[in-house]
């Protein structure tokens, strides 16, 4: 059995004990609180976890209207640039009939928000938004109840408009007037929610971004705070043999913290730290390890007889804000601010690292400088907390870019083998697909085929690997859609027509058609040294088709992507502007993995772990981008942060083949 989400498989705690509901008012202040009772299926992902079939005895607060009328919603999702803060605020404001600006979305604070597995797998829109909508509807109805009671009015004559309850008599009240002096809790269960309105709302905290006022984790300052740095091993799995840290201690105010293999330094003055760190003499012993040169034979030692083999390099997420954490201890309780996609996961890691109960730990996630699947873990939080514990002061630790490139984790590398056959009409008759190490996401073919074998094979990865935007769907789509293109050309059938002939899925057909129409597929021939390519895919409830035009300079070994048309359909559209941003962002980011990003390593060391050695997409790489959003109001909205990336690389590869007749079977593709 295939683990589709192999690299996103994280277990939450089996039990979680939440406070008595009377405590809500101690934490939040008076007013009204809405609790959401989760059924077991929902609880797998967010909301309290019962463990096995245990029936939840306590629910958690999802919404609070204070006595002064402040409206707060609580979610364990975090904002890492995917605009979920805005999308969720928009959703609840819509249901509450209140202005977007009147709602505060409290995100990723483990003391305040309901348990959540984490922000990944494009789940915020399909699951969190309906849950919060349900809560907002309950609050809206409740406010009407309260007003009817207080005014002795017929409830049916009351309505809420622009954040005020309005009566037929012209009487009206702000929410705070109705919640004043109250300490009331109401529970809601499952129920219908409105379809999203499809509206572009500006990013709710956008002004803080353009004025530099938003405090990312790396910007937080606490009274008496020290800055930290960590001494890293000479190579992966290195063990400390000897150390002389007296050189570092000679710098004024520098303190060395040592605990086994962990060595860190702190100072109130950040600028002395690099010099102090360099003054430490240390010797490490590390095992010999495979390098990127022989990576693929290492991952898949014995090739079988295959039609084609594709390879995928390790790549780094390179979130522009590297891992960062601020930690402080007070009376045995640990508070950590950190940029992570899994605040509750990081809390669990901290509890394990320091052998203290989770109830003694608060993790808060300020809106973070991106993640792309690369910030699921709590290494930096643990390190900062260790330094803070040793010094008794708050400590901020911001990883350097080189540390982020080396000590985080990578998108898995892999090898993919394909064997296939089609009949003379271009109908697939056999499809055999083996993925070694890169992962199972998107591994299943959407094409109809009688004899199919699709398999993921485990391998021992020489580098630490984990989630990445779209997971292995990028690799699996690259191999499949490139190979489909080869088969189409062998059968002398237009690649689009070849796909149509083997597809029954109407939604896939729909995006292919939309992309082809916008691109003008089949309408013209490419100019000399230019080529056109098409590819499609589905993943996480979304369907995508990409058409690319490339220009190729074989002598200079240069591939330039001139134009990309992306058609994307993920059900009903919530916010078209932000959806388009996600699609364009995925395409631009995807250019890197398609054409130039690859981690080079040898013997436990990263060889190109800095931005001057690792090329990411820049302004000059930007193709002409055209996005076609297919709105299916009849289908529940799926997330959009990931899937638009998956068809890009094969559409480029197919265009290169079209231009110069060379099939590129390695990501990144180079001539």
């Amino acid at each position, binding site marked *: 059995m295939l683990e589709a989400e192999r690299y996103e498989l994280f277990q939450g705690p089996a039990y979680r004990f939440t406070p008595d509901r009377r405590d809500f008012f101690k934490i939040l202040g008076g007013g009204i609180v809405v609790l959401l009772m989760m059924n077991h299926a929902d609880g797998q992902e967010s909301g309290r976890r019962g463990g096995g079939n245990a029936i939840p005895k306590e629910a958690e607060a999802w919404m609070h209207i204070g006595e002064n009328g402040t409206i707060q919603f609580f979610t364990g999702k975090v904002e890492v640039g995917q605009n979920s803060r805005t999308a969720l605020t928009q959703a609840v404001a819509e249901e509450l009939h209140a202005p977007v600006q009147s709602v505060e979305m409290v995100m990723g604070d483990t003391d305040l928000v309901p348990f959540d597995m984490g922000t990944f797998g494009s789940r915020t829109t399909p699951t969190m938004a309906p849950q919060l909508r349900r809560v907002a509807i309950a609050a809206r109805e409740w406010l009407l109840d309260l007003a009817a009671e207080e005014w002795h009015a017929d409830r049916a004559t009351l309505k809420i408009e622009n954040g005020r309850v309005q009566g037929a008599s012209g009487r009206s009240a702000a929410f705070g007037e109705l919640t004043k002096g109250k300490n009331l809790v109401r529970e809601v269960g499952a129920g219908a929610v409105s379809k999203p309105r499809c509206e572009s709302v500006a990013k709710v905290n956008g*002004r803080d971004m353009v004025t530099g006022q938003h405090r990312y984790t790396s910007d937080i300052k606490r009274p008496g705070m020290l800055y930290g740095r960590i001494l890293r091993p000479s190579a992966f799995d290195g063990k400390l043999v000897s150390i002389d840290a007296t050189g570092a201690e000679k710098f004024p105010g520098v303190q060395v913290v040592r605990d086994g293999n962990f060595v860190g330094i702190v100072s109130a003055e950040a600028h002395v730290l690099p010099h102090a760190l360099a003054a430490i003499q240390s010797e490490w012993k590390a095992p010999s390890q495979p390098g990127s040169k022989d990576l693929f034979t290492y991952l898949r030692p014995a090739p079988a007889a295959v039609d084609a083999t594709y390879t995928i390099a390790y790549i780094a997420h390179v979130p522009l804000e590297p891992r960062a954490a601020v930690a402080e201890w007070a009376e045995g309780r640990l508070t950590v601010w950190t940029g992570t996609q899994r605040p509750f996961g990081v809390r669990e890691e901290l509890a394990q690292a320091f052998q203290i109960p989770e109830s003694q730990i608060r993790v808060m996630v300020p809106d973070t*400088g991106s993640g792309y699947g690369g910030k699921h873990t709590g290494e930096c939080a643990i390190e900062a907390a260790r330094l803070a514990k040793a010094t008794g002061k708050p400590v901020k630790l911001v990883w350097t870019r080189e540390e982020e490139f080396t000590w985080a984790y990578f998108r898995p590398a892999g090898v993919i083998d394909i064997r296939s056959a089609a009949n003379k009409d271009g109908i697939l008759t056999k499809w055999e697909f083996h993925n070694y190490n890169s992962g199972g996401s998107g591994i299943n073919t959407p094409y109809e085929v009688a004899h199919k074998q699709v398999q993921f094979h485990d391998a021992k990865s020489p580098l630490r690997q984990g989630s990445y935007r779209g997971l292995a769907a990028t690799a699996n789509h690259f191999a499949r859609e490139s190979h489909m293109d080869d088969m189409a050309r062998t059968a002398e059938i237009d690649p689009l027509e070849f796909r149509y002939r083997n597809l029954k899925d109407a939604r896939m057909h729909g995006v292919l058609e939309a992309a082809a129409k916008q691109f003008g597929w089949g309408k013209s021939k490419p100019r000399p040294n230019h080529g056109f390519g098409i590819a499609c895919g589905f993943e996480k409830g979304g369907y995508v088709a990409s058409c690319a035009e490339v220009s190729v300079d074989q002598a200079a070994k240069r591939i330039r992507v001139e134009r990309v048309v992306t058609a994307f359909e993920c059900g009903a559209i919530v916010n078209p502007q932000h959806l388009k941003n996600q699609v*364009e962002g995925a395409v631009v980011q995807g250019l890197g993995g398609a054409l130039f990003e690859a981690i080079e390593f040898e013997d436990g060391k990263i060889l190109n772990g800095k931005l001057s050695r690792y090329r990411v997409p820049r*302004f000059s790489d930007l193709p002409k981008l055209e996005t076609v959003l297919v709105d299916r109001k009849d289908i529940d909205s799926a997330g959009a942060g990931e899937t638009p990336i998956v068809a890009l690389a094969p559409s480029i590869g197919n265009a290169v083949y079209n231009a110069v007749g060379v099939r590129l079977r390695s990501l990144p593709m180079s001539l």
Partner: protein
Amino acid sequence: MDLKVNGRTYQLEGDPERHLLGVLRDELDLTGSKYGCGEGQCGACTVLLAGAPVRSCLTPLRVTAGKAITTIEGLATHGKLHPLQQAFLDADAFQCGYCTSGMIMSAAGLLAKSANPAIPEITRAMQGNVCRCGTYPKIIAAVRMAAAKGGSHA
């Protein structure tokens, strides 16, 4: 030595070789300028030094002596956003926002010397600024929008 930032003068002591970015962020608590790479490759730390964009992560304090420094915090005047800040909002030219202040400062440097740049000129001037979320098309649109509204002066 004296450091002139956003119209204020700060008296600083200590190592004149330390980098401007750290001074701004850690000592003056002006955290709008960001650390992204420490080698001048990502542009997140961009500030204006005597009106020209520089990478503050590579700029030693001593070279700033007597020169006016503008950071993202100093761009708005009397609570009114600079045309570029407004354009970034209007064009939705960010996702996570971490690169945004550097983008705006690089663009401010560009518009100061070229009031109405065409796309290739914008691309050249902004080539040293990285947005990992891939909002480049929106950023280009924002710079053109600001230029159209006379974005060269605050």
